[in-house]
């Protein structure tokens, strides 16, 4: 079989799966199923990148997103008590309008760019292959030389993410009972138990004075 034809078939196959999975993310009723189809979207997207010779990105997508982020997401979705029906409200009602808008936009886009532009375009040679190194090595070199500034700014954005997450979630709420390990460790026995010496015989207690009724 012609390898190029095989690649083309693979491309359309994975592309189709990606689109179908992405659609089911927003149409499936069950949230857990939606997250699972998001995993499928990512996976078939990674396959598409693999076809485009971007092995490192494809693997990173699977390891980071599918492996870590989506699993975490799945846990969160499972733990949340989401009222399925309430979320779905209005979905069917607005579906026709949404479909019309989507189809109109698709037609407009195809009309504007033109189906003509969809024929094969020969892009420049793969820079990694031209340099004679692997895709990963080339990416690493590019990130730390040519794209150093964007790379560091991306790190800065992640820092902002961390700061924002802490600022938004770490707060002292009054009236919430929680354990303070710090205080538990630092506790002094004297604070907890007070040894009181008492007389063996109870002294005669003075009779309590009944509270005076306020005169009206």
């Amino acid at each position, binding site marked *: 079989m012609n390898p190029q034809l095989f690649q083309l078939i693979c491309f359309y196959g994975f592309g189709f799966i990606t689109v179908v999975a992405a659609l089911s993310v927003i149409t499936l009723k069950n949230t857990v199923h939606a997250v699972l189809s998001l995993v499928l979207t990512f996976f078939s997207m990674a396959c598409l990148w693999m076809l485009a010779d971007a092995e490192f990105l494809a693997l990173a997508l699977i390891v980071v997103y599918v492996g870590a982020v989506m699993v975490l997401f799945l846990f969160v979705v499972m733990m949340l008590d989401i009222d399925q029906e309430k979320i779905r409200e209005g979905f069917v009602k607005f579906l026709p309008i949404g479909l019309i808008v989507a189809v109109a936009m698709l037609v407009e*886009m195809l009309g*504007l760019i033109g189906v003509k532009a969809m024929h094969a375009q020969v*892009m*420049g040679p793969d820079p990694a292959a031209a340099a004679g190194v692997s895709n990963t090595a080339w990416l690493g070199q590019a990130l730390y*030389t040519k794209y150093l500034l*964007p790379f560091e700014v991306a790190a*800065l954005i992640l820092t902002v993410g961390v700061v*924002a997450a802490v600022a*938004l979630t770490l707060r002292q709420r009054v009236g919430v009972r929680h354990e303070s390990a710090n205080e538990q460790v630092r506790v002094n026995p004297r604070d907890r138990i007070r040894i009181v010496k008492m007389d063996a015989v109870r002294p005669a207690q003075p009779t309590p004075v009944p509270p005076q009724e306020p005169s009206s």
Partner: protein
Amino acid sequence: MPNLNDILIMLPELYLVVAACLLLLLDAFMALKERPWLHWISIAVLLVAIYLVIVGQPAQSVTAFGGMFVRDGVSEILKVFALLTTAIVFVYARPYLIDRKLVTGEFYTLMIFAVIGIMLLVSAGSLITVYLGLELLSLSSYALVALNRDAKLPSEAAIKYFVLGALASGMLLYGMSMVYGASGMGGTPTLDLAQLHHVSSYTTAPKLLLFGLIFMIVGIGFKLGAAPFHMWIPDVYQGAPTPVTTFIASGSKLAAFGMAYRLLDAGMGDLSHQWQLMLAVLAVLSLAIGNLVAIVQTNLKRLLAYSTISHMGYLLLGLSAASPEGYAAAMFYAICYALMSVAAFGVILALARSGFECEEISDLKGLNQKSPWMAFLMLLAMFSLAGVPPLFGFWAKVLVLESAIHANMLWLAIVGVVFAIIGLYYYLHVIKVVYFDKPAEGSVLAAKPDISLRVVLSLNALALLALGLYWGPLLSWCRSAFGL
């Protein structure tokens, strides 16, 4: 390879990054009773950054990191004013934050990170820097809007801002990918804005390029808050803590102008005949929606939100002229708007107390009897926003209208004048409430005893008057940035 020269060009930004990280550490390790010092340290950090920007100003445009970062006159001016307005916001914010127990290191750090985003955005030399700067600014802003977790409105505003912002970023990225693709058809694909300038002359897919341009304009329109991409502005302005609103209405708008200038002129300048009319349509829509809907507002923050939308219309008027003169007028307008909105929100911040946001127009009833000086400052801010001579806002309006006329868009200038007159109504309404209405029973309306706030607010509002009388130097500074 990046070298020392690249780092020296980026010195103000790098300094701010280091300072923001140090502030985070200081916040974590400072004793509780020394925390208030963070406020003054943050202001000092910003002032030093202004000094670094001005001192390191290059004689002509220089680039760093292979053209990804551009330092020229435009970026210098925008950076100075973004830093300045943020420092002013810090001063105004303190009593408000103390009242609401929001004085945390995170507020200051996130603000400084947002300013770094602005600085990257206005000196972006590549699509990738534009996007990253925008995200740095936006992410910090989303978090800042949601900072007051105990109230309901801020969370709602933050979610709306986040969802719509993510959508707009997606649109922008989609447009950028199209432009990148178009640049690769018939040449080497490039993200560099200076190289993208010539794409339209060689690309074999001119429609794809145009298609990308439209999506980028959607992203710009959202960031500016121009109609019809203005939906987020009223809710975010109302819901966000007022200091954050002040920042979004001042520094953020300078960034949006910088981004529009970089993308449209530096990147897509060859297509200016295409985007001129698009911007003109956005301008007319913003002027109409902003000014007409503002009339029925009863909430002062919402009113100022719609006033922002109309002001962005005027800014777009200058941009759509697509000439250095128009850009200079638009930049002058952006700076003017930033100073005016900071002053207007400053009065709200000065009057707010714990449990009283002072955000309804009726809250200002009889302000003149209770606190005449604050009433006068509000008068200056409102007159300047309305564009009453001889205040600053008047000259800014005149300049953008003039640039529109010079660009053969007389109709646009006429629309601008008509809506300026309509807009006068709701600004005057606020002044009427302040000066001629009787104070409500039990209203206090005393300005905060905070000395720094009073002094800076007075200077800020009086500057609107001073710059209105003596606007030449600032204008010639703006014009020199565009080689005029």
